[in-house]
């Protein structure tokens, strides 16, 4: 009934190769976009934006990035938190004006970047750092690579805690985003309108998803997948492992850097590296793509939504409705997330994305299964 290509004729190659070749699917996509861009900004309040929508959008970008590396290219990474920190600190330095010192003297100071370009620079800097930490992937694989990226995680957090230049020599070692606007509309700071923060992050999320989708179904994505499936075979058919792996690290880190920058500048406004970008952040994003589905764009969104919404939903049900003690609910949440990860790994290793795919297959035949 739904999701059928029957009667849906494509007359050009472009039509045949579009992301959503089935008309029904395409319209659904347009409707979702329309609601997200035009309807949601008018109905949201502070609570919805700051507690649900911003973390969802930002974690979705991080999950997209990690999914490119882990899901598409098969390189396990536990350095996500560290890379998000790079994005956040790069964004901070660019939005407050990068100062270059030499021998105790201020050599020069870059002008303050606009918030939009600061976020982009956060991504660019993280891409560079990501490539550097991706170099060991040429020699080591699997668990050993995971440990190497774990080293990146700890090193980067230590670096941002240790070198005062990164936090502009503030006494507390915290970075806090000053007020910045885009076309006169505040984007960062305490008095930002909820819809503005939401739309700003939404733009980055949509752009990231479109870029990721088109990269993964093009030549570079096929190379990544070839490396993931069997690197020796891929090398024999002419895929350059050096380029494939390093581009995967670069693109992945770029997205993770963007998400780190947004996480700091728009969502939290002030961060402390050890607390906000610790190892638990790396695991959280990894859980997102495991639950959402490795190697899928939709899965990144589903996983992010799931792990952002679940704690809030549990809190609303447990504390606000049933009046349970807050600590019981917090413990329950840990148990449930842990259980879900085990259940997903056993029952559905391909994550929520696979459930969605199966549902779509079923809907093609429904209500006439024969």
């Amino acid at each position, binding site marked *: 009934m739904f999701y059928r290509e029957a009667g849906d004729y494509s007359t050009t190659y472009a039509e045949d190769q579009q992301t959503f070749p089935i008309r029904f699917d395409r319209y659904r996509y347009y409707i979702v976009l329309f609601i997200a861009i035009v309807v949601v900004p008018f109905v949201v309040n502070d609570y919805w934006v700051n507690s649900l929508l911003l973390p969802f959008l930002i974690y979705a970008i991080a999950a997209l990035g990690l999914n490119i590396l882990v899901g598409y290219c098969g390189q396990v990474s536990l350095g996500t938190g560290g890379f998000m920190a790079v994005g956040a600190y790069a964004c901070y330095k660019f939005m407050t004006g990068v100062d270059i010192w030499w021998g105790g003297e201020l050599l020069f100071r870059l002008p303050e970047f606009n918030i939009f370009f600061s976020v982009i620079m956060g991504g660019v800097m993280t891409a560079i750092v990501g490539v550097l930490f991706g170099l060991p992937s040429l020699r080591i694989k699997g668990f050993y690579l995971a440990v190497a990226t774990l080293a990146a995680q700890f090193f980067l957090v230590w670096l941002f805690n240790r070198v005062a230049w990164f936090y502009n020599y503030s006494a507390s070692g915290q970075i806090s985003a000053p007020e910045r606007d885009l076309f006169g509309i505040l984007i960062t*700071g305490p008095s930002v309108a909820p819809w503005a923060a939401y739309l700003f992050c939404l733009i980055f999320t949509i752009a990231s998803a479109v870029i990721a989708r088109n990269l993964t179904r093009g030549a570079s994505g096929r190379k990544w997948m070839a490396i993931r499936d069997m690197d020796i075979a891929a090398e024999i058919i002419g895929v350059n492992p050096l380029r494939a792996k390093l581009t995967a690290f670069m693109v992945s880190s770029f997205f993770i850097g963007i998400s780190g920058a947004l996480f700091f500048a728009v969502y939290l406004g002030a961060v402390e590296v050890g607390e906000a970008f610790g190892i638990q952040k790396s695991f959280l994003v990894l859980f997102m793509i495991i639950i959402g589905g490795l190697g899928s764009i939709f899965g990144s969104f589903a996983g992010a939504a799931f792990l952002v919404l679940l704690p809030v939903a549990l809190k609303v049900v447990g504390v606000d409705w049933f009046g349970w003690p807050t600590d019981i609910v917090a413990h329950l949440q840990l148990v449930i997330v842990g259980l879900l990860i085990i259940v997903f790994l056993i029952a559905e290793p391909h994550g929520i994305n696979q459930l969605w795919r199966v549902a779509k297959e079923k809907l093609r035949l429904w209500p006439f299964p024969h």
Partner: protein
Amino acid sequence: MKYKLGTYAVAAVMAASPVMADLVFPSLSYRTGPYAAGGIPFADGYADYFTMLNERDGGIGGVMTRVLECETGYNTEKGVECYESTKGEGSLVYQPLSTGITYQLIPKTTADGIPMHTMGYGRTSAANGEVFSHTFNYPANYWNGASGAINYLLEQNDGDLNGKRVALVYHNSAYGKEPIRTLQELSAKHGFEFKEVPVDHPGQEQKSQWLQIRRDKPDYVIMYGWGVMNQVAVQEAANIRFPMENFIGIWWSGSENDVLAAGDAANGYKALTFHGVGRDFPVFDDIQTHVVDKGNAAGAGDQIGTVLYNRGLYAAMLAAEAVKTAQEIHGEMDITPAMMRDGMEALEMTEAKMAALGLPNFGPEFNVSCQNHGGTGLVGMTQWDASSKTWSLVSDFAPSDMDVIGPLIAEDSEAYAAENNITPACN
């Protein structure tokens, strides 16, 4: 079944919907995670005091109080979620008990016009009320603590610390880094040698730090720790046989949880404080009759009289007194957050007031004003007795070195004002 579920849902919504005209005190607590040992007693004390006011006096000025608890796990993201979900309920004052969450909330609470009280933590320069209009940190702050510790050492050494060596073991975060500037200034002033020893979150592994201390042999160690880091540090200090009476913790490193684990070896360990310790205050009788005996104690009810329980109780008492002050100023019983702010800014704590509340000599006397949100900064010293398992006050609440702290507060708050385009003013 459906009908039953529907009934439950309706009942739950009715139970959760706010009762009209009450005074809402959100409690951003943490009963889980690596810092729960400190979060639980504080949250219990905070909640129990308001329960007692409801049961004994029928609220404050005839208006019932309501404590909205929200679990943060000492995590800033959850703290933001808690803030957003509770601020719409008429929350009067926020007390996040986390320096990280405080930094998030300073701009947000100021923009939303809700006061925040960071008692003995948070951003020290918030003591300058001309810049931080909605943030209060009376009666004492981190820099008072650092100076108080040094003053105590001065007293012990007949006013001369020249050539002595002092090490600071600190939680490597915004919280732990706070006293460094003050201690550097004080070391220049008094001529002692100062060394920093950072410990990373959560602080379960401190072997290398204490090895360094054993090698450097400082005369005194000051600690700014929190959570599991404290017990580990006390244990490690005992392991290297560092003399406990020369080991001084800030008030967040001076509760029963921190020393019990090390047993007898912790005997003599010292910690700063800005309020009384123990159960020998009349108010605990009321807590017993009106809260514990009626089965309304928060949490497991086993924390009453511990250091951090007392601190939660003290925080609640100061909030309740600020409410009373606000009710007097505005002549209205059901106050708003804006009135609460005025009440906090006009708060006067006198000995007579505290004695009337059943807390004689519990804390220092102080006044809050628009210029000074930090109180007088009097700090005392407590010491742990491992055989009787009690903390006792060994030095009275004494003033800290405001000649050093004052300029630092002015400098840091002016930097904040410049960053955020705030014109310092009192209205």
